């Protein structure tokens, strides 16, 4: 049977301002992880609910998380010290699907949404992969992506690094240059909406990983519902935690 897992923090370093890379022990039960899956993490006794955090990369003995300090829970997580234990549930969610037949793929990440794409890119080895990374001002994980892919382009909103502007601008360029068979994206909703629009315009398939507030993380409580297009009734309500967080880009209906 599955259970909560208690994993030791092996390392925690601030890799950019307010962005932390935390490596935790890959305990025995943390098996068969797919890129795009997440952990639901108990931060401390003072915070009731767990926090969903993507698995950024997997190594033989450890799992890497990349976390942005944003609210109470992530502040606690980012302050965890080497040797402390993390109480995690997972791996959860469906993760990205990789199709042997798709050779030319584009991977787009925005901000902390770049985190889960790292493991994905590792697993896309052998394909023709373009990685597009967008940040407000300070990039991170770029070197890590470059370990696996030669073609990594960066955009920053303020132009402090790479292309000045949105990563979706790079995306349009890339897709025009050499259309893709699959687009993988993770980032803020506004970026994903734009990716959705562009993919639809250029008729490219996509898989996008979305965010929704969660409680159980396993599909039981229905607080994380996402609206998707459905054959029969037009719309269908699915669980971001269990049926997602990765959905086909065509099907997701964003809030307006």
């Amino acid at each position, binding site marked *: *049977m*599955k*259970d*909560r897992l208690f994993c030791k923090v092996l390392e925690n370093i601030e890799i950019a301002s307010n962005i932390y890379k935390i490596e935790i022990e890959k305990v025995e039960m943390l098996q068969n992880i797919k890129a795009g899956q997440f952990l639901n993490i*108990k931060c401390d006794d003072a*915070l*009731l*609910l*767990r926090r969903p955090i993507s698995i950024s990369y997997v190594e033989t003995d450890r799992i890497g998380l990349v976390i942005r300090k944003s609210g109470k829970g992530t502040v606690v997580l980012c302050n965890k010290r080497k040797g402390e234990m993390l109480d995690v*549930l997972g791996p959860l969610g469906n993760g990205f699907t990789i199709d042997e037949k798709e050779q030319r793929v584009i991977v787009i990440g925005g901000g902390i949404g770049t985190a889960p794409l790292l493991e994905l890119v590792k697993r896309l080895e052998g394909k023709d992969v373009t990685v597009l990374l967008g940040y407000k001002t300070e990039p991170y994980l770029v070197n890590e992506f470059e370990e696996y892919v030669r073609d990594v382009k960066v955009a920053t909103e303020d132009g402090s690094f790479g292309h000045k502007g949105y990563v979706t601008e790079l995306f349009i360029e890339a897709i025009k240059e050499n259309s893709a068979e699959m687009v993988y994206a993770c980032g803020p909703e506004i970026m994903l909406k734009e990716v959705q629009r562009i993919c639809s315009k250029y008729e490219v398939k996509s898989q996008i990983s979305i965010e*929704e*507030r*969660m*409680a*159980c*993380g*396993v*599909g*039981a*409580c*229905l*607080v*994380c*519902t*996402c609206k998707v297009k459905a054959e029969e009734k037009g*719309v269908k*309500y699915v669980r971001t935690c*269990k049926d997602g967080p990765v959905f086909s880009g065509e099907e997701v209906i964003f*809030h307006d």
Partner: protein
Amino acid sequence: MTKIDMCVDLNGFKMKNPVTVASGTFGFGREYAEYVDLNQIGAISVKGLTLEERQGNPTPRVVETPMGMINSVGLQNPGVEYFIKHELPYLSQFDTKIIANINGNTIEEYCKMAEILSKTSVDALELNISCPNVKSGGVAFGINPDMVYKVTKSVRENCGKYLIVKLSPNVSDIKEIGIAAENGGADCISLINTLIGMGIDIETQKPILARGSGGLSGPAVKPVAVRMVYEVTKVVNIPVIGMGGIMDYADAVEFFLAGADAISVGTANFINPKVTMDILKGIEGYMERKGYTCVKEFVGKLDF
């Protein structure tokens, strides 16, 4: 050492142990079956059902609060017929009691559902007259003793199953509501459902929940729940299933001492999917320590 008997008998409704899971927090059992042996749970109250499928409220549907959470799922469920066809058979594999939590917009809807479900293998119905997350029906029924009596009585007449009435804590006098349910013909009372609460995002200046307010659950509400269980069990003669913020065995024992015949675990499942098993073991340990051989020996044994 004498053997500890965890069975409880709620006036004919027999469970192998008094630890049940609360409606809306355990889905239809499928997801948590990967974490807990459902055969070990006293009863499972399934996600609130309605006559027709419901899509529920827009998201966000959850806010974390100090030691609590507010939800506004809004009774998203596939409808009672789907439940009977696709979920009940799954649940029926397990040796646990199945409680169908029913929700209507009108008394007729409640009755209709009771009628339909009475022909199935569910073990009990739980009349939810206290859901704060729907516009019509729901909580409106739950705060007025006359309405509670009326809806209970009507459902009773259409119900061939053990009938549990679930009370809303958002009332001035929970005792009169409990009495109304008993007089209406309830076999059992469960409480508490969620308190109505609200959380606001001070940056966007919007409520965090798309619906504005929702139902507060978790440890924060436990003191209110224990008090209400105590009050209700003093005035009714039917069994009571207590819930609200139970996180561990000690919380559960508080409810038993206050008068609950069984307890239900909701929000805690989200934090620890195996929590029911921990609670069960904890209760056993408590009983051993105190020399009890069955749960009844300390139900309502509050020394006050």
